[in-house]
Structure formats: structure tokens, C-alpha cells
């Protein structure tokens, strides 16, 4: 009875032109019915597949550079009729700023562990309906530390995509010194290899790794410790080649010999130029985990769920790993990977190197003092 009334109401709105055709078909369920019918009558809708009505014709994915297998995304579009429109970002702050400003049209995006709490606090993302992501099976994850930041106040807001570390890449053709620590990195960058080192254009890692020089916590908010880090950064600034998170081109061209790097980039550099090796500072540093989440304002939530579920399918996720070079905590995916990747020490470093690493904290990212230190470092 109610359903009938609702249908008539929507029909009237459609007739008056106050809702679009797609909205009308969507809310009344006629869209699904038509799509099913169309599926049953091949040729009526041509190449469009049966799901087209239910998950729309596009899903907007916002992510990081070099972070997906294009073949996977194309396949998703071909089988569901929903084309994946990908946008890439340079920093979590930028993503946060855009989503906070609103009107993004994103359906799925890829936040890093320490940002999720802030997104929840600002009411920008929705708790996930896990029944719509059957491929997400937390019991298969090797380490709960990688999945845990997705849960805020007991609700799952984000599911694990992949994880990695922040260390540095060294071109051993030019740098012969054995390097094992952040102390080595900063001392050589300011000394013998002046003009050859790069650091991220990113507060969290640049200040965090300067803090590690003194053995302080990566997440320190202590005024005195931060002042020490700032002193080191300002001292190193004239010696740096660049402050830029896009360090692969300069490392490849030989302009830079030393750079702070994330697992995947280090992996890609080493794969193409074996002389570029990856070092995790023995004092520690950052370990992180990226997630899939759905913005509250997502215009196509069914599409978002379908895409996340698809990308978490172990066979699909395996191809994702082969494309981006970051490890995934899902054991089912690990088992599918070729032997040389399972034993790759850049992706899966030794346990004693991993244990001193710290996850970035939400407060570290939004701390105004750290933001200001970074800005002073850059504009010095």
C-alpha cells in the first residue's frame, strides 16, 4: 500500500519534471526492472549489461598516483557497465580539504590510516555496510594493526587496501657508504652528497624522519623535540636537491641520488634500476596502511560498494599488487603472489626492521605546530 503511494508520488514528481528520469527509475526500482528485462532481451540495450541500472554508469574513484591496475578498472567497467572515473591526489591534506569543501562527486576514495578518525569527526564518511562487501574478510588479515584504524567508535568506516613503509632510496652507483639509519641519511645529505637528496613535500614524513635523527617518536608533538627537528630541517634545506613527493623522475635521471621514499616507489625504482636500493632506518620511522572509504556525499553508493568489493576479490587484488608494488595484508592475496614477490625484501622487510616502525597518528597530521614548521622549512 505504502509502496504504491510512494510510486504515485514519485510518478507525479517525474511528470512535473522535478526529478530526473534516472532518479525516478532509481527510486521506484523500475530502473532495475528495466535493466533486468534489457538483460533478458539482448540487443535492446546493446552492450549495456544487466547491472547498469542498479549501480549507474559511472563510479568516481579518488586515489593516489600509480595505485591501481588499469586493466582491473577497465574490466569492472566492462562487466558492470559502470565506468571507473579515476582522479589522483598528492596528499591526504588536499583530499581532506576538498572533501570538507564539499561537492566532490567522489564515490570511493583512498584515505591513509591516520586520517580516518578526522573524517569521522567531521562527519564526511559513512559507516560501511559490510554485507555489501563480502570479499572483505578481516579474519584473513595477517596483522590486525593494518585493519584496525578503519574502525572508529566500534564501527567500520574503511576497509584495508594495502600497506607500506616510509624509508629512503639510495643510488649505490654514486653513494658507496653503507647506509642503515636516518642519521646516515641526514648526515650524508647535508655533507658529502650536498645537492643530491630529496625529501617529501609532506609534513608527516619529513618532520617525522627529522625527529628520528634524534631518536624521538615519529609522531612527536613535543615542543622541544619539534624545535630540534626544525633546526635540522633548516640546516639541511640549502643542501637538498628538492622538496617534492614526486621523486621518481629525478632519481631516474640521476639528478638526485638519495630520497625519502614509500615502498611502492622504491620497489618500482629498484625493479628498473637495480642499483637503487631501499633502506628502512634502523631507528624506526613510519609504517602505514591505506583504506577504501565512501564519502557521505557519494552520489552512487551502490556503485561504490560494488567497486570496493570487486577490488578486494583476491584474484583482482593480486593484479593490483603486481601493478602498484605495495604489500596487502590479506593472506588470500599473498598466497596467490609469485614467489619472487613473496620474498621481496622491499615489500616484506625483515621483522626486526618492522618492529620499531610507528603508525602515524591523527593528531600528528592536523597538528598546527607541525604544519607551521613544514611551511617555515619550505619558505625558508
Amino acid at each position, binding site marked *: 500500500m505504502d509502496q504504491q503511494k510512494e510510486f504515485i508520488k514519485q510518478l507525479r514528481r517525474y511528470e512535473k519534471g522535478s526529478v530526473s528520469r534516472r532518479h525516478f527509475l532509481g527510486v521506484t526500482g523500475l530502473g532495475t526492472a528495466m535493466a533486468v528485462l534489457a538483460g533478458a532481451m539482448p540487443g535492446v540495450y546493446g552492450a549495456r549489461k544487466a547491472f547498469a541500472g542498479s549501480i549507474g554508469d559511472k563510479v568516481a574513484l579518488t586515489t593516489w598516483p600509480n595505485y591501481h591496475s588499469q586493466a582491473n578498472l577497465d574490466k569492472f567497467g566492462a562487466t558492470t557497465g559502470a565506468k571507473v572515473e579515476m582522479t589522483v591526489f598528492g596528499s591526504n*591534506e588536499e583530499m581532506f580539504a576538498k572533501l570538507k569543501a564539499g561537492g566532490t562527486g567522489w564515490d570511493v576514495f583512498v584515505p591513509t590510516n591516520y586520517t580516518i578518525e578526522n573524517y569521522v569527526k567531521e562527519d564526511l564518511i559513512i559507516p560501511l555496510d559490510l554485507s555489501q562487501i563480502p570479499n572483505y574478510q578481516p579474519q584473513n588479515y595477517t596483522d590486525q594493526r593494518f585493519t584496525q584504524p578503519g574502525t572508529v567508535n566500534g564501527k567500520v568506516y574503511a576497509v584495508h587496501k594495502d600497506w607500506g613503509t616510509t624509508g629512503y632510496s639510495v643510488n649505490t652507483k654514486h653513494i658507496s657508504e653503507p647506509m642503515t639509519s636516518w642519521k646516515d641519511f641526514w648526515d650524508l645529505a647535508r655533507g658529502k652528497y650536498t645537492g643530491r637528496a630529496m625529501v617529501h613535500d609532506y609534513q608527516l614524513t619529513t618532520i617525522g624522519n627529522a625527529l628520528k635523527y634524534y631518536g624521538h617518536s615519529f609522531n612527536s608533538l613535543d615542543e622541544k623535540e619539534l624545535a630540534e627537528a626544525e633546526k635540522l630541517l633548516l640546516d639541511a*634545506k640549502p643542501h637538498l636537491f*628538492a622538496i617534492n613527493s614526486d621523486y621518481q623522475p629525478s632519481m631516474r635521471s640521476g*639528478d638526485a641520488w638519495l630520497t625519502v621514499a614509500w615502498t611502492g616507489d622504491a620497489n618500482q625504482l629498484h625493479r628498473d634500476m637495480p642499483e637503487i636500493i631501499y633502506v628502512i632506518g634502523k631507528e624506526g620511522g613510519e609504517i602505514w596502511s591505506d583504506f577504501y572509504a565512501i564519502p557521505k556525499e557519494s552520489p552512487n553508493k551502490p556503485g561504490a560498494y560494488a567497486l570496493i568489493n570487486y577490488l578486494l576479490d583476491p584474484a583482482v587484488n593480486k593484479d593490483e599488487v603486481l601493478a602498484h608494488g605495495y604489500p596487502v595484508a590479506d593472506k588470500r592475496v599473498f598466497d596467490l603472489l609469485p614467489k619472487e614477490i613473496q620474498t621481496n625484501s622491499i615489500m616484506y622487510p625483515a621483522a626486526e626492521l618492522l618492529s620499531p616502525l610507528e603508525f602515524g597518528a591523527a593528531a600528528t597530521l592536523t597538528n598546527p605546530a607541525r*604544519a*607551521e614548521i613544514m*611551511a617555515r622549512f619550505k*619558505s625558508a
Partner: protein
Amino acid sequence: MTMAVATEAAMKPEKKRWGWTALLLAPSGFWFFMLLLLPLAVVIVYSVGVRAPTGGYQAAFTFDNYLNLPARWAAFRNTLVLAPSGTLICLIIGYPLAYYLAVKSNPRSRLLLLILVIVPFWTSFLIRTYAWMFILGSRGIPALLEWLGIPDVRLINTPLAVLIGIVYGYLPLIVFPIYVSLEKLDKRLLEASADLGGSPFGTFRQITFPLSAPGVITGCMLVFILLMGEYLIPQMLGGGKVFFIGNALVDLFLQSLNWPFGCACAMALVVVMVVTVSLYLRATRQLQGRDVSLM
């Protein structure tokens, strides 16, 4: 004075005229209000606020953001050094080029030469700046210099690289206004000067240059104002080490999410611009003894 009287006389007869004037001015007035005054008001209001705990804007009334401006002194200094020097170099290179195009070149090949000046605009500025990254990078000019026996030259990510990028990018913008003012130059004046015994340099100094001054002033202003807000060139050719105010602003809005301080910096930039441009106009006006307007 006479013009003002004439306008008044023309306005008087019909009151209806006023309605038409208002109607015709409405679109530009609306534009002016919505896209200049209103945003400016927002920027002023935000600039006395404070950064919200997770970033962004939180209402407040404080001048702390303005007091904190010296923290961005390096960005202001870089901009105030590199923008005028870039403008000056553009002028020094652009003037002879414009002079050649307008006065010396064969009228039949002139059009082709003018098109060649515009050709770079057919490709995205971003792509052309990327090309400079490679030219100035270690496999570009430094490799060539090394081959010539001058090893270990570093160009990319230095102020010099930014300056080269600026001059390259803005040169065409200064050539055109100067070209236009030189093209209008009455060639008989040059002949008269020569007849009266003026040396070529004297003729240039006393006749050609003063008559092309409006073009020079407009061109310099065009380049200078755009350079003050430049972001892309220092970002790409300065490697995050040569910071302009534009870069500081992007950082404040998108990275540290300190919108109030960003607004205060933006206001400071507006003030710096108004002051420098009016000083510049006053200086050139005295030099010329007449009004100069933007073309």
C-alpha cells in the same frame, strides 16, 4: 575640464538616459560585486579568524595572522626580487625584438614573424615548463657543459632556473604591447631627427623610446602583475626550494589547512601589489609628464 562639461550637457536632457546607463552597467556591476567585492570581503573576514582544530576556518577576531606575516618573509622576498628582475630581463630582451618586428623587419615577412612569437601558446604552458625541467636537469644543459669541459653545473631547482622559466614564459606578453606602440610611431619623426643632425642613439633616446613608453609601461605592468602571483614555475623549476607567495598560499590552503593565515597572506599580497603598482605608475607618469593607462 571641457570634457566633463560636455558629458554633463549630454546627460541633462533626458532622465531616461540614466535608466539605460544603469541597465547597461548592471552586468559588469554584478560581476564586479560578485567576483571582486564579495570574495574580498570573505577574505578579509577569514583573515581575522583562527584555524579550526582539524584545519580550515573558525570564526574569531584577532590580528595574530597579520602579526605572523614575517614568518613568510622569505616568500615575499623571493617574489619581490624575482618578479621585478624577471620583468626587467623580459623588457631588455623583448624591446629589441619588438623594435625589429615593428621597424626593421620586411613588412611581407612581418606577419610570419609575429605568428612565430605566438606559436608557443599553442602548447600547454605546463608541458613547456616540463620541457624546461629536462633542459635544465642534469641530462640537459649541464651535460652539454660537461662535454665542453665545465663539469658539475647545477641549474634545476635554483633561483636561476626559476628566472629562466619566468623570462621564457612571459616574454611574448611584453613583446606585443611594445610592438603595437612602435608600429604606430610616425617614421617621419625619425627622418626629421636625422635631418636635424640627431645621432641614431640620440634619436632613439629622445624620440623612439619616449613614444613607445605607453607600450613599455603596459607590457611591464602585465608581466609584473602576473609574476607576483606566479605559482607553477617556482613549483616545477624551483623544486619546492624557491618559494613564491603563490606557493605559500597554495600550501596554506591545501597542505597546512590554515585558511585564516592564508587569507592574511593574500591580503598582504594585495596591499604589496597596490603599493608597488601605484609607485610604479607615479614614477612613470612623472617621467613622461602625461597620463598612461592600461591598454
